[in-house]
Structure formats: structure tokens, C-alpha cells
């Protein structure tokens, strides 16, 4: 009896996490996979095993175009957040001298996150709009005659809002990796005659790679799954994969949306695997 209990203990200890992951991750994905093979019409969906949903999804040029568009957003948002994130983290980690100030400034970075995504997004509208702050300011100053049309409801607006929403996801892991860089390495580099930019390029950047990789995973997965930002900021003129799924769901085409979701999931998993291949992030975990 005692023996049995001691053998069961590890399983019992693992059980809570297993249940949570099972109910909230494994089972939903499994259901998604099952439903993606079902048949449907305007009135309901019918258990079946058919690959038509996938054939329709992958065979349509709209899908490919939407994926292309989403990847374009992901690439641009990634490039900008990585650039901004690196320099913000660099400033915090290497130029702010006291730990207190570092914490204060880092908390300042997180302040925008005290409001919801939607509010932060919508607050761009009065700034960017046709009669918004920027346009009326520029027209008033006589810099331009006509309001700039592409500020709002454009890809520019989508990328701007996404950068705003997701930069912190890049700053945090990079800052975290940089804080772990032994300061004597910087001195050793300086002792070897490295100038500031040489230290950044040869020491800090290579050692910050795991942080950049983790930030990349956050940002890429968030952008790939985003539908609200694209919808609000493009004014419905631009599409993303998640937005396409949402539209399918609003038309009750659940199996089609499920198939789409599986395709997206596989794509994102491949992207994450690719990132992990390039950068070893194990020492960060």
C-alpha cells in the first residue's frame, strides 16, 4: 500500500498541470482538429471526414493573399519592435546606473498596459484621423494643403498600432538577457580596445540573442493571431488570417474556420521551431 502510494506520488504531483493543459490546450486543439474535417452548410455542421475544408482553404488565392498580408505585418512589426526593443533594453541595462532607476523606467514602459488593447488602439484614431491632431496641426502650420489620407485606415496605421501594442513584449526579454550579461565582459572588451559600437556589435548583440528570440516568438505569434488591430486600424481595408477566420465564424462556417486555424497553427509552430533552431534559448528558461 505504502509502496503503491510512493509510486503514485509523482503522477499525483503532475496531475494539476496535466488537467489544466489537457482541458485548456490539448482538448480544444483536438476538437478544432476534429471539426476541421466536418461538413457544414448554412444551418449547421455534420460529423464527417472530408478534406474539402482544407482543399478550399489552401486552394483559394484569397487565403494565400491574406497569409501574405499577415506575414508582411509580422515581418514589419518584428523588425521595428526588435530595433526599438533592443535600444530601449540597451539603454535600461547599460546606461541607467542605479537599480532603482532601472526598475522605475521599466515600470514606465509597462504603464500603457494598464489600459486595454482596444482603448489603446482607438486612442490613435483622434490622433491620426482626417481631422485628427496630426493632420489639423500640419494643415494649420501650413506644411500641407490637404490632410494626409494614409495616416488612418491604412497598413501604416495597423503597423503603428501593433508596434505600440507589442514593443514591450520585445523589451522585456531583451532587457532580462542584457541584465544577465556580466559587466566585466564589457570592461574586458574595452580593455581589448573595443569602441562603444564594437562592444554592442561583438559582445552585447550576440549575448542578447536569446532575449531577442523570445521577444520574436511573442511578437510574431501575437501579430499572426491578431484580428482586432487589423480590423480597427485598417478600417476593414486590410485582412489578416485571424480576421478571415472571424468572418467565417460570423457566417457559421465553423469547420472552414477550424481548418484555417489548424493551418495557421502549423505555420506558427514552424516559425517558432525555426527561431529555436537559430538561437539556443534554453539558458534563459
Amino acid at each position, binding site marked *: 500500500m505504502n509502496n503503491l502510494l510512493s509510486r503514485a506520488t509523482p503522477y499525483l504531483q503532475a496531475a494539476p498541470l496535466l488537467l489544466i493543459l489537457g482541458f485548456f490546450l490539448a482538448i480544444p486543439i483536438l476538437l478544432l482538429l476534429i471539426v476541421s474535417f466536418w461538413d457544414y452548410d448554412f444551418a449547421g455542421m455534420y460529423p464527417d471526414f472530408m478534406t474539402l475544408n482544407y482543399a478550399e482553404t489552401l486552394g483559394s488565392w484569397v487565403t494565400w493573399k491574406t497569409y501574405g498580408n499577415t506575414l508582411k505585418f509580422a515581418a514589419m512589426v518584428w523588425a521595428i519592435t526588435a530595433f526599438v526593443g533592443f535600444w530601449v533594453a540597451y539603454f535600461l541595462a547599460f546606461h541607467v546606473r542605479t537599480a532603482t532607476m532601472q526598475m522605475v523606467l521599466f515600470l514606465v514602459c509597462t504603464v500603457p498596459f494598464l489600459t486595454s488593447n482596444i482603448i489603446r488602439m482607438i486612442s490613435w484614431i483622434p490622433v491620426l484621423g482626417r481631422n485628427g491632431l496630426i493632420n489639423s496641426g500640419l494643415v494649420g502650420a501650413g506644411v500641407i494643403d490637404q490632410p494626409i489620407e494614409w495616416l488612418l485606415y491604412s497598413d501604416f496605421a495597423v503597423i503603428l498600432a501593433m508596434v505600440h501594442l507589442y514593443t514591450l513584449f520585445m523589451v522585456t526579454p531583451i532587457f532580462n538577457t542584457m541584465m544577465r550579461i556580466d559587466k566585466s565582459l564589457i570592461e574586458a572588451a*574595452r580593455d*581589448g580596445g573595443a569602441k562603444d559600437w564594437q562592444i554592442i556589435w561583438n559582445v552585447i548583440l550576440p*549575448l542578447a540573442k536569446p532575449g531577442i528570440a523570445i521577444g520574436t516568438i511573442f511578437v510574431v505569434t501575437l501579430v499572426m493571431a491578431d484580428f482586432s488591430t487589423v480590423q480597427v486600424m485598417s478600417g476593414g481595408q486590410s485582412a489578416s488570417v485571424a480576421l478571415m477566420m472571424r468572418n467565417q465564424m460570423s457566417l457559421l462556417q465553423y469547420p472552414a474556420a477550424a481548418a484555417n486555424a489548424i493551418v495557421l497553427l502549423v505555420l506558427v509552430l514552424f516559425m517558432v521551431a525555426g527561431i529555436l533552431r537559430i538561437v539556443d534559448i534554453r539558458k534563459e528558461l
Partner: protein
Amino acid sequence: MSKAAEIDIASVSKIYGKTTAVDAISLKIPAGSYCCLLGPSGCGKTSTLRMIAGHESVSVGDIVLGKTVVTHLPPAKRGTAMMFQSYALFPHLDLIDNVAFSLKMAGVDKVTRRTKALDMLKLMQMDAYASRKPAQLSGGQQQRVALARALITDPEALLLDEPLSALDPFLKIRMRAELKKLQKQLGITFVHVTHSQEEAMALADIIVVMSEGRIEQAASPREVFERPATAFVARFMGDHNVISGKVVNSADGLVTFEIVGGGTFSAAGKPRTPGADVDAAVRTDHVRIGESPIKGLGFTGIVSNLEYRGGTIKLTIEGAGIAEFTAIVTDKAFYAAPVAVGDAVPLHWDIEDAIVLGAPNP
């Protein structure tokens, strides 16, 4: 092989806000010598080293290396190279790239710098590991790589910040010998920071004993050991009993002093004004058991502890107003007339084994 430079530190201070880490020290380190900066933690030895290296700004004073004033030069322009306490090897680079780092920064092309780096690794007998990363090496191996990286710039002086502190005791002694050999072979000036007197004695041509940001004594190991300048040096180097009292009189190069409520002792030294505070040092290993033929060169006390050390016995004695007096006697002398804890035992020493110490830091 390469030119060595004299290091001249001229009344240099380092002040952090309100605390003075290094207080107007002056020191000349001759070219090609092995100098150890020795002292307890917080004595300013590392700050001094880092100021010579250029990793710490000099608050007041000047540092001259050879004929150049280097006080405001960046580290790489000084002709010094530093070896860091934890070696600070770049974890993302293999050994060749670690050693070649400064050449890469100077814009040396890849083939040349890798050839030079490999030569340097050969000198350190580390060429077999050239393509490994630092994390795959043992402490002693990492130290050799750090040395190779520091020496590739052909420095006039090598600055070592507690280079042996990360090693286990056995390896410490081996790497110590290697450091000494390397210094002789290269003929350049080595400045080595350590808190271990044993390490300093074994390595140094000059030992600089520091305390609270000041230099207590800078002399050869033998001088520091046999004639400690101050009570701090005598205590820090060990092997000396420090007796403190008030001067009674001075005559014939002998200062007689009295411990308040205790015995009267004599020690060799320059005359002092009667009534002044004075410290004297007595070599622990030169104390003998037995009545003193001369007054003031011995006392009788109670044995409070005995420690068997093989060839010698360490006796701790209390008496004549001295709380703790150490005598190290040979086993032969001890077992000829053994004593036990609690016994009263007379001790004495020769006149040349008791010396008056300089005034402590003002």
C-alpha cells in the same frame, strides 16, 4: 621578449561620493618586477589596480607608465592589459576568437589574427582546445586563456585582479608557479591584487600592503615579513605577536614600554617620547620556553590553548596584560619539557626578535 614599463603612481586618490577608497597613495613599481597589492577586502587595492588599468577614473593625482602620463587615457591606449577576477571570457566566442578579440577590434585581418591567437594559445599550452567555448574549460584552463587574451596585445604591464581566487587550493599553487614563470619569461611588469599573504610572499618582488585606502608598507617580501612597518602589517602578515603599551624610556636603540596593568617589555627601535603609545612585534616562531636572561624580553603566562601541528606546536598564552600571545615551538623543544593547558609557562625571546612598529595610520 617585450619591453617592460615602470609604473609610477603619484599621490593618487579615488573618491566615490563621500567615501575615499584610495587616499593619496604614491608608489613606484620598477619595470619588470612582480608587484602584489595585498590587503583585506575594501582596502582599496582593487580600485588602485583598476585605476592603473583605466577602468576607474582617477579622482586626484597622476599615473605614469614608462614615460607616458596615462591618467586620462582609455584602457587600450595605456600599454596595460588586465586579467579579470572571473576571467571575463566571452561566452559566445571560441578560444581563438576570445584571444583574437583585441586584434579584431584593431582591424587586423582574420587570417593574421587567428594565426597570432593560435600562437598565443600554444604558448599557454591551450592550442588543443582552440575551438572550444570557455564554458567547456576548467578554471585553470580558463585562466590560461584569459592570460593569452591579455598578453596578445603585447602589454608593458599585466594587471591581475585576484587571478587565483576562483581556483581550488591545489590548482592555486600550480597556477601561482605558472604565473611566476611566465613573468620571468616575458620580463614585463606584473601587478597582482590578492588578499592572501601566502600568495603575495610566494610571488612578489615587492609587496604593497594596503589598509583603508593607504599604503602601510611597500617592500620586498622578506622585509615585510621580518620588519613589518606597522601594527597592521604585523597582524595582517601573521607570524607576529603585537604588544601595545606606553613608552617608559628609550636608550641604546632599545625602547622600554609598559602594558597598563601588565608587564614591562623592551624592543629594538628609534627613541620615543616617554608616555607615548607604542606597538612592538615579536616573531611567534622565535619565542622559546624558559626564563629570560634579560629583563623585558619575556614573561610568564598561563597556557590557554595548545595546537599540535606536526613539526611545531602552537601555544596560546595569556598573561602580563597580553590577552593572546602565540608561541610556535618545535616539537623537539616542546616535548623536552611539555606543558598543558592551564600551566604557567615562562617565555622569552632574543632582542632582535622584538621590534618597535611605526605609528598606525593617522
